[in-house]
């Protein structure tokens, strides 16, 4: 059984469904996190966006990987309704624009780096500000380091990074209104990023 999403539309569809279903399954948890330090809609927002992705999964999977990623990005931009929409949307759009159809390992890393940079530009933000970037940036760094245990290791790195947002003080997004009081809670976008990475890793490993 192949596990290469660049050549196999069935793998692409499994991957898309894995991500979307993970987001939808964790909607209540994400909303609860956002209630503590934001406006309590992150789970609803992600659910809205990824339900649209799920509904289009076969169509999306029928396209080459870059086009599928770009289309997912566009769907998130159009459907999410919160700040996370353009941020995750930009992540996927940039991946779609940057990835060749059959990328090498280095090309994959370069595309991810471009996508994370695009999220920074979109959010006028960077790691350390208690956002999804506090997961995306360290996981990208870990991937760059390479070595044993990739991709499996990345899921653990992602969850550890999300956990590390707990003591941070938010300076971006709605949570920034809370100032000091944002300390002590996990950032909802960091959590959704970790879940997304875990879904990708698990899906690819299951079939390996």
């Amino acid at each position, binding site marked *: 059984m192949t596990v290469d999403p660049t050549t196999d539309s069935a793998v692409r569809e499994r991957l898309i469904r894995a991500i979307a279903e993970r987001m939808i399954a964790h909607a209540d948890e994400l909303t609860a996190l956002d209630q503590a330090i934001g*406006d309590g*809609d992150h789970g*609803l*927002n992600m659910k*809205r966006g990824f339900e649209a992705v799920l509904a289009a999964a076969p169509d999306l999977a029928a396209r080459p990987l870059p086009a599928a990623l770009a289309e997912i990005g566009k769907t998130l*931009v*159009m*459907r*999410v*309704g*919160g*700040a996370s*929409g*353009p*941020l995750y*949307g*930009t992540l996927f759009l940039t991946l779609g624009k940057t990835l060749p159809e059959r990328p090498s390992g280095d090309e994959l890393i370069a595309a991810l780096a471009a996508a994370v940079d695009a999220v920074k530009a*979109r*959010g006028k933000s960077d790691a350390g500000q208690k956002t999804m970037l506090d997961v995306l940036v360290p996981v990208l760094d870990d991937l760059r380091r390479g070595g044993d245990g990739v991709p499996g290791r990345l899921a653990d790195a992602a969850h550890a990074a999300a956990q590390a947002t707990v003591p941070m003080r938010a300076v*971006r*997004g*709605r949570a*920034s209104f809370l100032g000091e009081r944002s300390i002590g809670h996990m950032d909802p976008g960091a959590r959704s990023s970790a879940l997304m990475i875990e879904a990708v890793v698990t899906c690819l490993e299951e079939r390996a």
Partner: protein
Amino acid sequence: MNANVGIVIVSHSPDVARGTADMVRQMVGDEVPLAWCGGNPDGGLGTSVPDIMDAIGRAWSEAGVAVLVDLGGAETNSEMAIEMLDDERRGRVVLCNAPIVEGAVMAATEASAGSTLDEVRRTAEELKPA
């Protein structure tokens, strides 16, 4: 064709956006192209990129369009919406760093005098956070 700069009001709340537009209309009448949107794609609190793109289209003016937003997500979604416009329109839409209600009134008043997009933005931004 109205040659004045257009104003777009983007709030998380459709009520806030509609009410702000009412206040602007009462002050400047029909001299300024004006459109608003608010609410996420399901109608709850939030904003919607396609709705923002649509509002920019409705308030379109050759002199450009100034966009007023409330909180962070509205700003991020509006920036995204602006980037997704045609090349030809994109450069003529600016996001104002100003409070939504007070900024919209200021911007519209300035626009009604036939001021340029840059002047409209600067007038609104006189109210920006200290």
